């Protein structure tokens, strides 16, 4: 089943309600993470993706932490992104802002306001949009609660 997400925020794109919006409201269809075809790993809650003698890739359907939350945020932006019409900044701004410091506990995908601010600052400073996106969310992910702590955990 596809989950159609309407990225709300007409006000965001039209700060002056007396004028027509300059950009259409971004709409993205973000598919559900597709796990139903994957076989179950015996004696486990995991699903199996790939299995070779040297190793395997399983999937934890219940995984839920700062990295899954980060991924939900960036996927929301990437699925929205339409070069030439919907840029990364627009899509990021359109994503719901996280309401807590634990985005993985929130009911829907969200992006922290701090990340939106950091990304906007990078674009304003002239950093290429895609490189800025990579840096803010993945290379220097300090704006996203819990990510650095996970990465630096012993």
């Amino acid at each position, binding site marked *: 089943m596809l989950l159609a997400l309407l990225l709300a925020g007409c006000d965001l794109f039209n700060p002056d309600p007396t004028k027509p919006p300059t950009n259409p409201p971004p709409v993205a269809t973000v598919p559900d993470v597709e796990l139903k075809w994957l076989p179950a790993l015996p004696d486990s809650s995991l699903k199996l993706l790939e299995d070779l003698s040297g190793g395997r890739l*399983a999937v934890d359907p219940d995984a839920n932490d700062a990295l899954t939350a980060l991924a939900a945020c960036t996927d929301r932006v990437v699925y929205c992104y339409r070069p030439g019409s919907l840029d990364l900044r627009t899509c990021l701004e359109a994503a719901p802002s996280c309401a807590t410091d634990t985005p993985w506990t929130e009911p829907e995908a969200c992006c922290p306001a701090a990340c939106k601010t950091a990304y906007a600052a990078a674009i304003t400073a002239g950093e290429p949009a895609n490189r800025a996106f990579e840096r803010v969310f*993945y290379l220097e992910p300090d704006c996203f609660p819990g990510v650095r702590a996970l990465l630096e955990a012993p």
Partner: protein
Amino acid sequence: MRRALVLAALVSSSAAYAWESACSAYANPAQETSMLKGTDAPACQPSGLDTARQRWVGRFDEHRQLFEATRVLAGLPADVSSTTALPVFTTSEGAAVDGGVVATLIPSAFDAATRVRYRQVTAGELSQLPDYSYALWDWASGHETCPLAGASEATDCHDFAAHMGPVNSNHFVPQSQAFYAHYHALALGRAAECASMKAKVAGSGGRFAAFLRACEWEALALEAVGQHYLQDAWSMGHMWQRWGAPSLSAFPGADAEAQRDRAVLVALVSGLFHGARSVLQALPAWTGYDVNDAMCAPWADGRFMASGTLAQGVGDNYLQLIPPFSVNALYDTQSQIFFSCAASGVLEVYRAAGENHGAATPQAGLVSIDPTSARCFGQRATNAAMARGAAVDLRVAGAQVSIPLDARFVAKLVPQVAKSQGKVSVSERVRTEFRHSLSRFVTMARIRAKEEPLSTDVADGRWGDLLGVKPNGQYTGLPAYLDPPLPWAATDANALHLRRLFHRAHAAEWCASMDDAALRSLKLHAADAALDAEARGVACTVCAEFAVRHLRVGTSVSDYDATQEPLCAVLVPGSAALYQAQPGVTDPFALASRWCCP
């Protein structure tokens, strides 16, 4: 690695990330390939011991088929593709490998040989070698040792999924270019020796034609090994900088085990981008599905750029879609450039060797290209193709299903590696790094596919590492396990395996090194009363094989049949000479046999 790294029941022996290779256990492996292809045979066991002892022929021997099509295009005689039975002079001792014992295939010193075993093979089969062996010397020595530093046991060492796959970044561009260039240089170097031999024996009335053909066959065998890398470079799933290096020591990690773990995880991910049909089709729940997984499977956005030309491509498991295996204009560019590169390489070697199997008659229209050049290795998957690769694709009951490997999906992954107790999850720290690293990559790949779908920066490795492992273009240099560069030193143990197996090809070297004492040693060995009957027969055969190369029919330097100068006298003037005469016997081989075993 530990013996417990047994192959998962899920995995077929064809779980190789390259054009497919095949190994089958035929009841009569001496048959010609055309006969074998029509015979059902079980797949080889994935251990190296079995793959070194069987024919590399089967339904999905795509590399061999590519070599054969290349040979036809280059116009090499069909005889080049005949099954050769290479006699290996070895010992009766079993080789202890991983707790078991097998009959050794390691060529022994000639004056210690007590058994002869035959390696039935065609040159084309050896184009599959990099999927089964680390080098030609590794195959020549029966996969009885582990050439890969950081992996200890020969069986697991040659298991594709356990070890060979994790270090097969050299099957992807641009690393593959250096590996092809290495083997092409070896082939040309040996071919030059063949030409030299041919010039020296030109006045011998064809008596040494078998040596010339053996020499040429060795050169073609080396070219065939190299062609594997060239062939892979033209598989859609290989047209990108898969992360990694061909040596475990190049991977980050505190110790060999940690390095191997990262190599395994990177290989698992690389396989998904490459296209995982051969692996995923084997999943028990998926055997009824058609896993048409990009990038190797045919997809509209499965395209690559080659010298400024945008073209459609397919890869492993889909060889039959491209010309000349089918008439399909969609893949004309892929086919034309690849076969021009491949045929140019084979033809260059064959001509350099002297065309000893017959004159080459290349097909009309063959375009000559430097096979080591960027024209043959510069192709790259488009960003759109890479993004297509970031998914698992399958058809279920006629409906196409694509499971995107987007950031959310990969953030849920639980990577596991094989340990003595089975497959276990990696440490939480490595798992976190893995998920984060892969999330970053798939995110940027999908962004770039939207921005510039026909650019190739994702395939060019410009979006960085995975798990601290860099794109393969950043690892240069050839691993120590590779076949050594020429000239092959007599003291190089790996080269010695090859010089012994291809002893006729290396006749000049053996002529130079085999002095009177060495010849006597062969004779003494054949007379050793301690040998069993089979061993004595082998010792006699070996002795005659070499003695005849030195044997002059006559009694002394001033009294012999100068019209039958032996091979060594022609190749290496001044080499040891053996004088034998028997009334009524003029055949040098008969005289050599009688000298060895009266």
